[in-house]
């Protein structure tokens, strides 16, 4: 029953969130601010993790390939597809759920317990629309960019491993990452990540917005936001993969 209550409250909150902003100017200002906060500021962690994962994956796949009949460029093929289909579109979102999700839940949760949200409501402002809508739209906007950066930097990481790690030649690696490339995997990965961006921001905003109590509850809201958005992403991953790739 508790889960139905949460779903009901979440739907009602989204109903209040997805309305025309009271002031377009204020919305665009918040949107630009969130683009930087949720998006631009996530680029460094996005690049660092992706480069290392790309490099490690290249090394690991090469070491695990015991069959001498498999061509060496297969390492490039597997690295590319794994990064594009799963890491950069899903695992990256799980990582960002930790960074962005906890930030949103704790920010909105703190505003709730310090009566800042009540103050907005008392001014006649639709606080859900003012606070949550820019976060959701900005993160959805930035997510394709983060995915593209992630795939690109992972492939660069793999390239560096090929060049300096001595596990395969650069030519073999480059041939592998361009071999049998299926173009529709790109919109698939981007679409998937945009859905996850919505899940991360809206679920985290929900937990923040419904916080009651004090600092302890803000911490709990932050944890719940990360755990629940991660679980939802994992379930959705199975569903979306089945729906879009099979």
């Amino acid at each position: 029953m508790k889960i139905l209550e949460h779903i009901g409250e979440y739907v009602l909150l989204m109903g209040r969130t997805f309305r025309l902003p009271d002031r377009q100017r204020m919305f665009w200002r918040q949107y630009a601010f969130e683009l930087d906060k949720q998006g631009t500021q996530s680029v460094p962690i996005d690049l660092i993790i992706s480069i290392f994962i790309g490099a490690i994956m290249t090394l690991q796949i090469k070491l695990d390939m015991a069959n001498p009949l498999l061509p060496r460029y297969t390492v490039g093929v597997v690295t590319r597809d794994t990064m594009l289909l799963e890491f950069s579109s899903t695992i990256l979102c799980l990582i960002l759920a930790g960074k962005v999700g906890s930030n949103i839940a704790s920010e909105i949760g703190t505003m709730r317990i310090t009566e800042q949200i009540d103050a907005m409501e008392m001014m006649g402002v639709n606080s859900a629309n003012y606070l949550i809508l820019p976060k959701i739209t900005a993160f959805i906007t930035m997510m394709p960019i983060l995915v593209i950066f992630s795939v690109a930097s992972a492939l660069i990481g793999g390239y560096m491993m090929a060049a300096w790690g001595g596990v395969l030649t650069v030519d073999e690696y480059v041939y592998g990452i361009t071999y049998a490339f299926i173009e529709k995997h790109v919109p698939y990965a981007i679409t998937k990540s945009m859905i996850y961006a919505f899940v991360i921001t809206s679920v985290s905003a929900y937990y923040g917005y419904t916080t009651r109590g004090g600092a302890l509850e803000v911490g709990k809201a932050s944890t719940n936001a990360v755990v629940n958005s991660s679980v939802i992403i994992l379930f959705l991953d199975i569903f979306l993969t089945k729906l879009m790739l099979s």
Partner: protein
Amino acid sequence: MIAVKNVHKSFDGHVVLDDITAEMRDGSCNMIIGQSGSGKTVLMKSIIGLHTIDSGRIEYDGRNLPDMKEQEVRLLRREVGMLFQGAALFDSQSVLQNVMFPLEMWSAMTKKEMEDRAKFCLSRVNIQEAAWNLMPAEISGGMQKRVAIARAIALNPHYLFCDEPNSGLDPNTSLVIDKLIHEITQEYNICTVINSHDMNSIMEIGDNIIFLKLGKMVWNGNKDTIFHAKNQDLDDFVFASNLFKKVKAAHNKGQE
């Protein structure tokens, strides 16, 4: 004027407000007082629409709040200013931006006009120019309350609500805040509703006092009549401290 008529409110069968009827006039500080658990916070939250009442009427110059649709309530709230117990300033915005916020949301002013209005309001509550660009965390509790008052009056409200305006403040700063609220109330002819249990405030600015006990209104008067009230519950609350017992004794002696 705000008129509260036969208001009832209960939570899970527990009656918190029992047939409350009171009038809160323009240009006066209307104080809701009572012990903890008497229902004063619930009454204030009901008047501003944060709680839905079970029955009764809450009329803002004839407009009954419980009958209003969500959009009408939001429009009404543009006529309302509120000072929260913890000031509730937006911590991501500077002092000046906080005061400009309601203007940016609801006024048709240019940026320059909004800035001028915000600066006027800040000057009115004696916030010096040096503090205008500071963040809320960088100013004292008393200053935060004054900035919150400036924000509350930015849109020239008809109604001002103050929830425990003096909590956490030293006696001198409390006095400053009380005087400020009283001056602004009279200057702009606002209907001000204050939720308090600070006896100094009550004696200083209580133009109309509503005393609650266990959800019932047991006395209604003002700071002058409070000394002569023949009400044991009120006496127990007001003259709980030795200081006020002495004040009452001196007052009665002076009258003899």
